[in-house]
């Protein structure tokens, strides 16, 4: 999954994988754009299963002061505040927003956590998020910073192992800064130039784990600088084009800088800075869209990537879309890739022959307005994933695995009225590597349903439910993860135009449910019932 904030990747630099742990400042979001499925032609590496682009609030559209706060069970506390100012005369604006959140998430001790940890095990997450944006005409300077501090006590099973619970700390920061501006040489052409700096650093006070005899302290700095030029042209009434070129230079830690202490109680000295591996990349893409009869649209694109580690990657895509009054049908062929990082090439004994992971996807999607208020969407797809990275049999290096296949069906029904808004969706997935060998570590059935009730302009009540079917777990001590139904509800009350109070109850039936684990933990218990009380306030 590729995660962007204001169009700049915030994926963890060492792995390129989506880092979902850091709590983003969601109260400063204007909208979230989602691209379903592989999308590397426009977005490049990591856009394998989809793209999530978080667009933060702009000074012009979010003026004034806003405050969001909540408190609740498991010592959960959150405070966010933001301020936006815009001067129309000068066309200049500024918006800043900051959030701090602390939670202990749940009770994972003893039987509550499948006896992975002692009764007294504790866990915390302390997140800080800061966004700032200055705009002057089409010029925007933006910076987004996320910091996550959490205990590492739940990363490793401590009961019956050498790992100990204690004052462990995972302390990682993500900094994105960018300058972007538009050039409009003609009314039908726009170029956007973007220069960005990304930094993902595991700070040197990180205590990665504690054993009976030692503590391990880590440091892992990484940064990247890049520049890109994206063009959009309306060539004729029917033909439009999007294209771009980009250059990037990254410095990635070859390994962790590490120091050890001589006892479980003693903090190790500050780790040394690890050697940094330099990596260069360049890419170019072009995608054309051609419309016939206002109803039929063809899209075709190509992308070329060169990287000093994995050399050349070529990625094509194509689609046919038919739009009618009440229904749309799309047939899409999409490819995407996730590039191995120097980190992957060098892990363990190293493997210099690693190839990028690739996904090729064919999808048929349709959506239909049954009535103006009732929408039905369905999607059928087949994906083939090549060169997936797995550890070799001796667990000493990464290697490319065989092909994995996925057949998926998704359907969704939405009913949208002012008083009631409801949805239900169902997804079926069938993973296999060979025709007779199903891979059951991904739940084959998931279903989500929700309803929002707004009887008047003061009250809004929402209930959402999520069902996940049984799946296999990598850990043989707990080989099957049972199916689970999790329901959340939120009731909000507008006491005045700009003040909203709410009660948020998550996992209302206190369902015991687990995520699979690839560590020595049996399985990860997910949070129990959590009750939050909060308010939002906006002063225009």
């Amino acid at each position, binding site marked *: 999954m590729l995660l962007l904030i204001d169009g700049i990747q915030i994926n963890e630099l060492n792995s390129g994988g989506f880092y979902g742990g850091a709590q983003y400042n969601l109260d400063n979001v204007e909208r979230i754009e989602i691209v379903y499925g592989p999308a590397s032609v426009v977005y490049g590496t990591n856009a394998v299963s989809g793209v999530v682009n978080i667009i933060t609030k702009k000074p012009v559209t*979010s003026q004034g002061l806003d405050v969001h706060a909540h408190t609740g069970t498991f010592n959960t506390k959150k405070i966010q505040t933001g301020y936006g100012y815009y001067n129309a005369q000068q066309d200049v604006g500024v918006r800043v927003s900051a959030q701090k959140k602390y939670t202990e998430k749940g009770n994972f001790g003893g039987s509550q956590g499948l006896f992975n940890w002692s009764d007294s095990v504790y866990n915390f997450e302390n997140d800080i998020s800061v966004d700032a944006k200055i705009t002057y005409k089409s010029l925007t300077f933006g910076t987004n910073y996320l910091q996550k501090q959490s205990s590492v006590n739940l990363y490793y099973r401590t009961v019956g192992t050498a790992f100990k619970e204690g004052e462990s700390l995972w302390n990682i920061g993500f900094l994105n800064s960018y300058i972007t501006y538009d050039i409009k040489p003609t*009314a039908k052409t726009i170029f956007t130039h973007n220069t960005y700096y990304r930094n993902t650093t595991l700070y040197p006070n990180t205590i990665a784990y504690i054993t009976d005899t030692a503590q391990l302290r880590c440091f892992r700095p990484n940064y990247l600088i890049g520049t890109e030029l994206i063009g959009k042209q309306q060539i004729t009434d029917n033909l439009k084009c999007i294209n771009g070129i980009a250059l990037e230079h990254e410095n990635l830690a070859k390994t962790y800088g590490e120091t050890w202490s001589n006892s479980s109680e003693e903090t190790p000295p500050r780790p040394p800075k690890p050697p940094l591996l330099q990596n260069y990349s360049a890419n170019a893409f072009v995608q054309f869209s051609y419309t016939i009869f206002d109803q039929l649209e063809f899209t075709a694109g190509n992308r070329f990537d060169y990287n000093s580690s994995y050399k050349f990657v070529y990625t094509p895509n194509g689609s046919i879309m038919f739009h009618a009054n009440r229904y749309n049908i799309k047939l899409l062929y999409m490819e995407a890739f996730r590039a191995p990082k120097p980190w992957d090439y060098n892990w363990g004994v190293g493997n210099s022959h690693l190839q990028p992971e690739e996904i090729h996807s064919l999808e048929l999607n349709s959506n239909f307005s049954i009535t103006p208020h009732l929408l039905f969407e369905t999607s059928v797809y087949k994906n083939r994933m090549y060169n997936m990275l797995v550890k070799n049999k001796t667990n000493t290096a990464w290697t490319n695995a065989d092909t994995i296949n996925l057949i998926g069906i998704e359907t969704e029904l939405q009913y949208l009225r002012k008083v009631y808004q409801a949805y239900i969706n169902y997804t079926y997935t069938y993973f296999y590597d060979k025709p007779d060998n199903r891979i059951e570590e991904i739940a084959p059935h998931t279903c989500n349903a929700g309803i929002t009730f707004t009887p008047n302009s003061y009250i809004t009540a929402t209930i959402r439910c999520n069902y996940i079917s049984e799946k296999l777990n990598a850990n043989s001590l707990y080989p099957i993860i049972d199916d689970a139904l999790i329901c959340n509800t939120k009731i909000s009350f507008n006491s005045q135009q700009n003040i909203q109070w709410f009660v948020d109850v998550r996992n209302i039936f206190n369902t015991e449910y687990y995520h699979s684990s690839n560590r020595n933990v049996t399985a990860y218990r997910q949070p129990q019932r959590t009750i939050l009380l909060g308010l939002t306030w906006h002063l*225009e």
Partner: protein
Amino acid sequence: MAFRINMNSTYKYILVLFVAISLWQQTTAQTQEYVIKAVFIERFARFIEWPITSKVSDTEKPFIIGVVGINPFGSELEKLYKNQTIKNKSVIIIYILDYKQIERCDMIYISKSEQTKVPLILEYCQNKPIITISDIEKSLEMGVHIAMGMQQNKVVFAINDKAFEKSQCKVDYRLKQYATQLQ
């Protein structure tokens, strides 16, 4: 008189609207679509009369224009209304993500990002004197008051008389003269 019109200023605005359309015809290549659409929205308000019982008649309250969905205007609306008034009232632009905010507005623009939500948005305006404007394809058939579109590189607009009747707002016949049939 609920619908009394100041003829002098009305003719002035018709002239300005006409000049704007003419200028647009001549300078299409240099001008952006949404700059012109922002000007059109401002002009529409001049030719619409809200019922006397509506909050538009309350001179103490500002005139509120809402942009529903992704804002395609950039800062054009803000610049336009920095020193402009509508019905002698200051103008506030609000950018709506929560549809409940629609009820605060006197006029809304429904962005193309809300294509599948138009019937729902119109429900929030039902039986209220809120003028709805959109450039979503077929939005006039869906029930908005004024639909904008592009024909031969020009911004054109069409008026939905039935929608005006339902909302108890009245549109000046001179604005209708410049309206067209969207293809």
